[in-house]
């Protein structure tokens, strides 16, 4: 059977499973809708968190991105996993003890302030929309590349599916579909990686394989018998240097910037509402701790495989394309050329493809080959000559990754509208039934807006992923941390801190993306810190401002200090806050 048929079969089967689960897990109460009745077992919550977390970008783009960055790419690997240690140790058990539904609600209650609630609400909506736009686009892209349908049709199919299970099932439906989506996406990611690792090094564990020696079979695949018995990384380092790149295993970016980006991604991860609310869904406080542990196991499984995929794919790509006559190009190269992900421009007219540093369409560069980062994961199974069903599986996996993240984000938006805005600010007297309708309606409207973003991607989306993390890092992370660990932190301090953190971070990113893009380079940055890493500074300013302001203003009321005290111990549920 052809790749196309396999992709349709596997995607169709996975979609049928998602729909069945959504019907089975439909929500009857607001508790169901927001937190799945706090009844999700920790292991399953870990899987759902993994699927929630790993987006279209993690699945399709990350390995390729790292293959261009070498060791510097580790800031993604460490940054997007290290945040879970912070989540587990600093947030998860205490937020679970608090036991309510949303992050704006926690911030509003803890800081006894509707203003704080409103800031948190706007921030949650902004961060989630920024993020979800990319996911819906991702759904469309996977459909168009694997299944011969237009991007827009793909987005609409994805929208219809998410609409169905997010409005029907709320958190409960989303959680159990995410469990299924995790299984699909991790299988789709690991199988090609295991096969490739076996082919090149004889070791079925890719995490070890890419630090091993190349076997005879691997050397044959690379068309270079001399590589047999050499360490794969040494071969790639040598190859990179020969072509004029830096050694793959060396770092190129200024150390301070790598440090700040990693930190910003870590605390941004710990501050993302769609991840934080997952810890509200487990039965007990110890479950919140262990589900963070499960989540990181499931996430690390993909995140430790990704750098292996980068190394295998990059070595293989260079060896099978560079210095090869175009007429003899491998068949996958010509297949993927149609999608525009790879390309060749014969600048020196010798009919041979040359890979060099620089852009392929820049006449001054000797590079002739276009390599889109996504190709490293998408074409990997074909490059390694794996069976068609494995290729089909990659399509289903990419869709699972994009849909699961989109659903988690949409729930944050829906809860922010129905629970925080309607129930807690505008219409406190409404019945549970009415609130549930607002929640479903909010999810529905959010899906449609997200889909429109997917069909008409606003120019800013691609550039503002850094924005989502920076904003979460500079607003939520400090506000929640101080809310739990500093009883004396008051509303004046928290509000001032959030405002300063958000304004500073947003202004810095805006300046380098729009104000003066020409100076967006290490020499132009303040202290050499890129816009991607500035969330760290924003968070530090937030802490500092909060601390100073809280010293000069009234300390929080006694019942709030008591509430904070009660968060720190497992046992009884927190009494209802009486802040409004």
């Amino acid at each position, binding site marked *: 059977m052809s790749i196309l048929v396999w992709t349709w079969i596997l995607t169709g089967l996975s979609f049928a499973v998602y729909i069945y689960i959504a019907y089975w897990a439909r929500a009857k109460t607001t508790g169901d809708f927001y937190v799945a009745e706090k009844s999700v077992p920790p292991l399953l919550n870990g899987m759902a968190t993994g699927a929630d977390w790993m987006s279209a970008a993690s699945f399709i783009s990350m390995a390729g991105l790292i293959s261009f960055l070498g060791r510097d790419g580790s800031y993604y*690997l460490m940054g997007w996993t290290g945040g879970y*240690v912070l989540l587990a140790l600093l947030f998860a058990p205490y937020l679970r003890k608090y036991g309510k539904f949303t992050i704006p609600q926690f911030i509003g209650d803890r800081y006894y302030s509707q203003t704080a609630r409103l800031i948190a609400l706007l921030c949650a909506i902004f961060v989630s929309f920024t993020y979800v736009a990319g996911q819906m686009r991702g759904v469309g892209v996977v459909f168009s590349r694997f299944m011969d349908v237009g991007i827009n049709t793909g987005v609409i199919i994805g929208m219809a599916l998410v609409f169905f299970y997010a409005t029907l099932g709320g958190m409960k439906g989303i959680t159990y579909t995410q469990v299924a989506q995790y299984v699909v996406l991790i299988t789709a990611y690991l199988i090609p990686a295991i096969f490739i690792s076996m082919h090149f090094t004889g070791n079925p564990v890719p995490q*070890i394989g*890419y630090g091993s020696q190349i076997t005879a079979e691997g050397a044959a695949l690379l068309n270079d018998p001399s590589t047999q018995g050499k360490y794969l990384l040494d071969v790639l380092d040598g190859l990179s240097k020969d072509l004029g790149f830096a050694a793959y295993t060396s770092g190129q970016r200024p150390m301070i910037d790598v440090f700040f980006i990693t930190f910003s991604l870590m605390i941004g991860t710990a501050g993302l509402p769609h991840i934080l609310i997952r810890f509200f869904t487990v039965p007990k406080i110890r479950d919140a701790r262990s589900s963070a542990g499960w989540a990181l196991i499931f996430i690390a499984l993909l995140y430790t495989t990704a750098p292996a995929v980068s190394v295998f794919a990059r070595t293989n790509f260079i060896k099978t394309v560079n210095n090869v006559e175009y007429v003899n190009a491998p068949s996958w190269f010509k297949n993927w050329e149609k999608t525009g992900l790879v390309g060749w421009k014969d600048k020196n007219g010798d009919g041979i493809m040359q890979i060099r540093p620089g852009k392929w369409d820049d006449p001054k560069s000797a590079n002739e080959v276009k390599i889109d980062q996504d190709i490293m994961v998408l074409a990997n199974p074909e490059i390694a000559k794996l069976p068609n069903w494995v290729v089909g599986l990659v399509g289903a996996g990419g869709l699972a990754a994009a849909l699961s993240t989109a659903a988690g984000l949409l729930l944050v938006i829906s809860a922010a509208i129905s629970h925080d805005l309607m129930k807690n600010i505008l219409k406190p007297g409404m019945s549970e039934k009415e609130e549930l309708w607002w929640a479903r309606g909010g999810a529905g409207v959010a899906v449609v807006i997200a889909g429109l973003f997917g069909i008409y991607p606003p120019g800013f989306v691609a550039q503002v992923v850094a924005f989502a993390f920076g904003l979460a890092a500079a607003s939520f992370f400090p506000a929640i941390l101080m809310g739990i660990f500093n009883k004396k932190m008051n509303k004046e301090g928290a509000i001032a801190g959030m405002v300063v953190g958000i304004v500073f971070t947003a202004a810095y990113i805006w300046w380098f993306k729009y104000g003066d893009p020409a100076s967006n380079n290490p020499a132009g940055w303040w202290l050499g810190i890129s816009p991607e890493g500035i969330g760290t500074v924003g968070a530090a300013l937030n802490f500092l401002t909060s601390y100073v302001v809280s010293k000069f203003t009234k300390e929080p009321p006694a019942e709030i200090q008591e509430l904070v005290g009660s968060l720190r111990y*497992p046992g009884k549920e927190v009494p209802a806050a009486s802040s409004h």
Partner: protein
Amino acid sequence: MSIHATKELKAYWKENLVIISVLLTIWFVVSYVCGILLANQLDAYRIGGFPLGFWFANQGSLVTFVVLIWVYVGLMDRLDIKYGVQQD
């Protein structure tokens, strides 16, 4: 239920803070020190085909993160029981 024994609970919280501090120190050392600040120096050593600093940045810190969370889970389970604040 010892939830009202303030002195006991203060001790529980203090022990919790010590656990968090120790684990976060290790968290910082494997990622920021070994994977970034000292990565170039550590690259002089190798495990298999991996330069050591590169390995910490690519694999070692991630594996340590997983271990850290599970150690925390275990320690906190014991601490909850020691102070009788576990839920059942």
